[in-house]
């Protein structure tokens, strides 16, 4: 087998690419593995192609800004395996990936996980109907291959991505039929005290206001204080029902795009056994990391949205910091050199994070777990409802593992990615236990369903 890499980075989004480029600048031997076909993560997904096809502008300046880092990353000299899905990691580290039907194992002295975020699942009645998707799903289609919805699209939920998608749809000639903001009234006012600190990221605040202005100018119906959103239809989505100003209303819809914020994707970090904490402001679990991204596991760092939702600028700085720390840990630079090297990035990271408390308060998740009707499916794979889980809790199941044993929630192909956070929060609400005590589901390797043939092939080593 090839000798061990100095550093393996999982994920080629903003944080992963930044870590790779910095590590290469410091002379480390680097491998980047990523499950997508091209670098960019989700935020800059398919940016190279979009630029080539001259349709990147309509996706916004934040998207276009990804073209340059992607180009620089490709030239940085790291080994790069796209379409590689990590499904097993052993101490030391030995990492097994599946790639284009074949299995490969490689070794690395240090790992940086830059696996990004996922959308917070937003369970509403009928959300398993075909035609109901996440806001991110529509953005993905707009980016790759450049597909816009043709029928009526309703956006429901809250978060900066809702505004971003609405603008992107507008630019693509696919006006949203309505934006249903599910924030309870008074939220923006309660966030005002945090505005002064957020103005350190004045550019972001201004861009957010501009997005809202564009939607108002285009007369896109925007309803505030919406509650009890429900996807309606027989075998696929036909409409969206909701409560607004005390009245029950319905809109026809071919697509319902839901969004209740994004959360770190902790599946890999949980499987590795990294310590995680409950983040009250962002209402999610996240890995415990220090200023350099180092976790509770020696040799493993987590950067970008996979550690904590802090935005793309912060993601890039955190990637750099972890790479410098890796170089120091491997003895390539001294601690003094590391400190000198990192001073600027640490300051920049603080500045980039300045807006987060404001955003976290304005866009706090709107799904109230105690109010999810019993009949709503929470575990989509196994069709376990909120009522099933509440019944299990009343029988004494007070943790995710117990609930899984009682109900099968988390036993399907997605391995609890979609239901884990919701189940933990529902247990907390039903049992009256704080979420940090309830804990999060512990994922296990293999991280994705694999065939027996793949299992048998794991351990054979060689170039990809």
């Amino acid at each position, binding site marked *: 087998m090839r000798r061990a890499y100095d550093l393996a980075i999982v994920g080629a989004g903003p944080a992963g690419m930044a870590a790779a480029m910095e590590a290469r600048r410091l002379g480390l031997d680097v491998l980047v593995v990523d499950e997508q076909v091209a670098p960019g993560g989700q935020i800059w997904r398919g940016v190279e192609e979009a630029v080539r096809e001259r349709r990147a502008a309509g996706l916004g300046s934040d998207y276009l800004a990804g073209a340059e880092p992607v180009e620089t990353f490709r030239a940085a000299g790291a080994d790069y395996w796209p379409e590689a899905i990590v499904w097993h990691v052993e101490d030391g580290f030995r990492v097994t990936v599946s790639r284009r039907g074949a299995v490969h194992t490689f070794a690395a002295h240090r790992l940086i996980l830059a696996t990004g975020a996922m959308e917070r699942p937003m369970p509403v009645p009928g959300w398993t109907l075909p*035609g109901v*998707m996440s806001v991110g799903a529509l953005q993905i289609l707009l980016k*790759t291959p450049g597909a*816009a919805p043709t029928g009526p699209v309703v956006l429901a939920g809250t978060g900066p991505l809702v505004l971003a998608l609405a603008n992107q749809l507008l630019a693509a000639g696919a006006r949203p039929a309505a934006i249903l903001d599910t924030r309870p009234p008074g939220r923006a006012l309660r966030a005002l005290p945090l505005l002064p600190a957020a103005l350190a990221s004045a550019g972001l605040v201004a861009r957010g206001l501009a997005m809202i202005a564009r939607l108002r100018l285009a007369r896109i119906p925007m309803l505030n204080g919406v509650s009890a959103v429900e996807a309606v239809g027989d*075998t696929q989505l036909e409409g969206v029902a909701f409560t607004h100003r005390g009245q029950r209303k319905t809109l026809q819809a071919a697509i319902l795009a839901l969004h209740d914020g994004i959360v770190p994707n902790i599946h890999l970090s949980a499987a590795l056994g990294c310590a995680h904490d409950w983040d009250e402001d962002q209402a999610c679990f996240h890995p415990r990391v220090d200023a350099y991204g180092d976790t509770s596991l020696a040799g493993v760092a987590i950067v970008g949205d996979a550690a904590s939702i802090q935005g793309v600028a912060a993601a890039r700085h955190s990637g750099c910091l972890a790479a410098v720390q890796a170089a120091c840990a491997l003895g390539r630079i001294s601690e003094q050199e590391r400190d000198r090297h990192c001073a600027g990035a640490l300051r920049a990271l603080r500045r980039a994070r300045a807006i987060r408390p404001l955003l976290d308060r304005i866009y706090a998740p709107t799904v109230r777990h105690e109010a999810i009707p019993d009949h709503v499916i929470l575990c989509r794979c196994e069709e376990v409802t909120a009522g099933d889980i509440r019944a299990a809790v009343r029988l004494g199941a007070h943790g995710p593992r117990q609930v899984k044993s009682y109900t099968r929630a988390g036993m399907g192909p997605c391995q609890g990615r979609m239901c884990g956070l919701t189940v933990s929060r529902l247990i907390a609400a039903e049992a009256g236990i704080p979420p940090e005590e309830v804990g999060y589901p512990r994922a296990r390797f293999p991280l994705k369903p694999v065939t027996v043939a793949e299992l048998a092939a794991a351990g054979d080593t060689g170039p990809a």
Partner: protein
Amino acid sequence: MFRLLPQPEPVPVTIDGRSHLAQRGETVASLLLRLDQPSMRRSAVSGALRGPYCMMGVCYECLVEIDGRPAQACMSRVAEGMNIRTGLAP
């Protein structure tokens, strides 16, 4: 349900025995959505129709069979001659 914005660059594939022209670079999920097929399998528990939710490999709703192997449609780029079977094939 969805229409293409860039110029067509056709890639011939088969879905449940029928020939279709996909767009170079798109995923199988994107193609099915553009063909007005938002559902591509039935729930193993209730038989209810299911379709893609996240489009990024997290939800596993878009499971189909590609060239004889189970795969997530949203993570599979179309290739010439690809043989796709959804869970709704007769």
